């Protein structure tokens, strides 16, 4: 049987979608953390710079129309307390530069009294500048005293680098947990599918009952379709079985009438050509009625298999009975059919079916062996149950067709000229397998066919 055309996998798709989602989330979390960290670091740097600038501004005294600025030591040393930083400052009164670094630009804010900040490059390094202003009175009236303090970014960068490592760790951890969760989720999400698959594949070949196990709502349409498909299949199967049985039944009676008429005509006819034709006719009618009989048997077997009986059967007794029933036929061909080893062993099953199976095997043995041959039947108890071996001294199975021969309507190459439908071994196999057993075809080392039926312990 060829496998289904597979394109993609729900589980993989689910897993990939979850992972993609997790990756996107991880990146977003990482970026958000970065941006928050940057803001916090910048804010704290701005606060320190503002404090420094304000402490300088506060030290300014206006005396006698002149402005004195007494730069506090801490104003600059506080900017260097945690990490080594380069620090710049500029003090201006109006447009006039008073002290510090004349080139240091001031940050311009929206309101003159609120601290203003800017980032720029000064003397070859990135700096953050805070500027504060205060109005002071001078000889020339009110003027803005402006203090700008700038600091390099070593501490901020170090904080950010540390935070970066932390957030990378958190991101990686988050992603790892997401991967594990995704694996678990995708597995559990496809679990019902696996359960359904398992329950369907566990079924026997003829089990067409609807699926009754509970399934998730998403799978309900699938299961409904499956159930309805199986119901239709069952209906269709039983209809065709019924049709075949009906047809065989209806064909058998007319065939019997035609056979009787043909025999009467044969007895009456004196013309050799006519007699030969009539004999061929009878042979063909036999063939047809046998096929019809086996079709009926098969229909019966199929029906009984649906509701297999489980009664204790003495296999040896059953075998003896079957041999006895065969005697008229075997005697006709002068075939000696003999019960060999007869262990007393019981199996559970349907006696009618088993008898039918045995009869089919014997029938075959009688049919395909030449006159005067010998058929031996052994019933033996084995470690795992029971087995029946039917050996003949006929031509044996053609080696190349051993596998094919048990299929429906398949006959061996050596079957030409023998009345048969090709259903016999099919019935045997179905019955044995329905009982949990196995049918094996082989050839005897000394020639002749061997059919082995194995049954499990009851």
């Amino acid at each position, binding site marked *: 049987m060829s496998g289904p055309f597979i394109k993609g996998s729900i589980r993989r798709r689910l897993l990939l979608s979850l992972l993609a989602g997790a990756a996107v989330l991880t990146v977003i979390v990482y970026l958000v953390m970065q941006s928050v960290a940057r803001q916090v670091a910048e804010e704290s740097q701005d606060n320190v710079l503002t404090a420094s600038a304000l402490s300088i501004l506060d030290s300014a005294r206006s005396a006698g129309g002149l402005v004195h600025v007494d730069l506090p030591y801490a104003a600059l040393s506080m900017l260097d307390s945690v990490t080594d930083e380069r*620090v710049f400052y500029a003090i201006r009164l109006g447009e006039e530069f008073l*002290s510090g670094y004349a080139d240091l630009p001031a940050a311009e804010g929206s309101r003159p009294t609120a601290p203003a900040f800017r980032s720029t490059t000064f003397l070859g390094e990135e700096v953050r500048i805070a500027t504060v202003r205060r109005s002071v009175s001078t000889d020339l009236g009110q003027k803005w005293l402006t203090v700008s303090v700038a600091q390099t970014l070593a501490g901020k960068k170090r904080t950010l680098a540390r935070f970066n490592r932390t957030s990378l760790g958190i991101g990686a951890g988050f992603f790892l947990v997401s991967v594990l969760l995704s694996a678990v989720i995708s597995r559990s999400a496809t679990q019902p599918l696996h359960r359904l698959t398992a329950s369907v594949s566990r079924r026997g070949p003829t089990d067409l009952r609807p699926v009754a196990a509970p399934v998730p709502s998403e799978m309900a349409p699938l299961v409904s379709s499956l159930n309805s498909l199986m119901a239709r299949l069952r209906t269709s199967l039983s209809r065709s079985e019924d049709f075949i049985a009906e047809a065989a039944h209806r064909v058998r009676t007319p065939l019997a009438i035609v056979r009787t008429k043909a025999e009467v005509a044969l007895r009456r006819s004196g013309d050799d050509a006519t007699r030969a034709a009539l004999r061929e006719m009878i042979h063909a009618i036999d063939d047809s009625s046998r096929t019809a009989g086996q079709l009926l048997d098969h229909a019966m077997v199929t029906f009984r298999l649906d509701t297999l009986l489980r009664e204790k059967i003495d296999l040896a007794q059953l075998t003896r009975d079957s041999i006895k029933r065969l005697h008229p036929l075997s005697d006709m061909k002068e075939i000696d059919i003999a019960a060999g080893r007869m262990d007393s062993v019981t199996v559970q099953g349907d006696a009618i079916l088993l008898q039918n199976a045995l009869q089919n095997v014997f029938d075959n043995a009688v049919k395909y062996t030449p006159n005067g041959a010998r058929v031996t039947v052994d019933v033996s108890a084995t470690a795992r149950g029971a087995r029946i071996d039917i050996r003949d001294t006929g031509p044996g199975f053609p080696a190349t067709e051993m596998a094919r021969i048990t299929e429906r309507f398949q006959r061996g190459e050596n079957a030409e000229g023998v009345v048969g439908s090709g259903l016999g071994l099919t019935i045997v196999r179905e019955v044995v397998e329905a009982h949990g057993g196995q049918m094996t075809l082989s050839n005897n080392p000394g020639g002749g066919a061997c059919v082995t039926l194995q049954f499990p312990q009851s």
Partner: protein
Amino acid sequence: MRHPAISPVLTIAFAVCATWIAGTLHAFEIEDHARFGDPGAAREIRIISTADITFFEPMIAAFLSANPEVTVDYTVASSTELSGAVTNAANQFDVVISSAMDLQTKLANDGRAMRHQSDVTEMLPDWAVWNDMLFAFTQEPATIILSKTALGALPVPQSRHDLINLLRQHPDRFRGKVGTYDIRQSGLGYLFATQDTRASETYWRLTEVMGRLGARLYCCSSEMIDAVKSGELLIAYNVLGSYAANRSDRDEFAIVLPTDFTTVMLRTAMIPENAPAPDLAAAFVDHLLQMAHGPQARPLTHTDINLTQLGTALNRIRIGPGLLVFLDQLKRRAFLAEWENAIEQN
């Protein structure tokens, strides 16, 4: 009235051979100059320093024995001249060594220094390195130098408080016999004075007392030590202890590390951003630091000066932008005015 102490300008002319080298160096006053090592060596390292040649020679000799293929060109200049020389980009030096921590800090802060990181700088204590630009390789305390002979039976003062009491109790004995830095002239004196005021108000009281006694003002530590030795001074305040301890005649005067607090200056080295041979400069700085901080560190100053005994009194000047505060023109003007007020009372 201010005492006619030796004029600072004269002092420089007297103490060192003031040389002007035109052409190679751009307009700054050189106090001394020397070359070490094989004169035909392929490579040269140019050092500008405030330290006397004799003070620094062992360091250079050790470097040369490890790097024989190098010549060391050593220029001595005052801290202000040195700072000006390094600021002028036309002058090219590989290593700048100065005792003026504030000026060195300003140079580095202004972006004149190259960052340097190595295994050696990694092991430095935090106080000895700033921004990977400035590296401290000595710790030199500001001390009180007293004449042993002239003090007689009087107890040797161990703190500024003791010193103030001593001066107050014997004003006649010490009148005109106490000396300290003229902080208007000496960068190091200014640094010590400003750091003293940060640590305690005692400095102002002491300065006023010294001012009332007609304190004599000097440009340099060695001048003060000489003055104490000659009997011109009985007490000199804020003398660089390393200079005093390294002299062969150090037994002739007492060196006191004040127990209230001892200001400790760090001599620092930096590599200018325009250094012609930065690799040699880095090697030299590492060598310097290894000798100062490494496992086989040889103290540059005499073992008499044991800073570890100071404990909490150790007031090590912190390298950093705080030092820029007293370089501020407004701040400096105000500080000098206050100081002049205190020291010039007669």
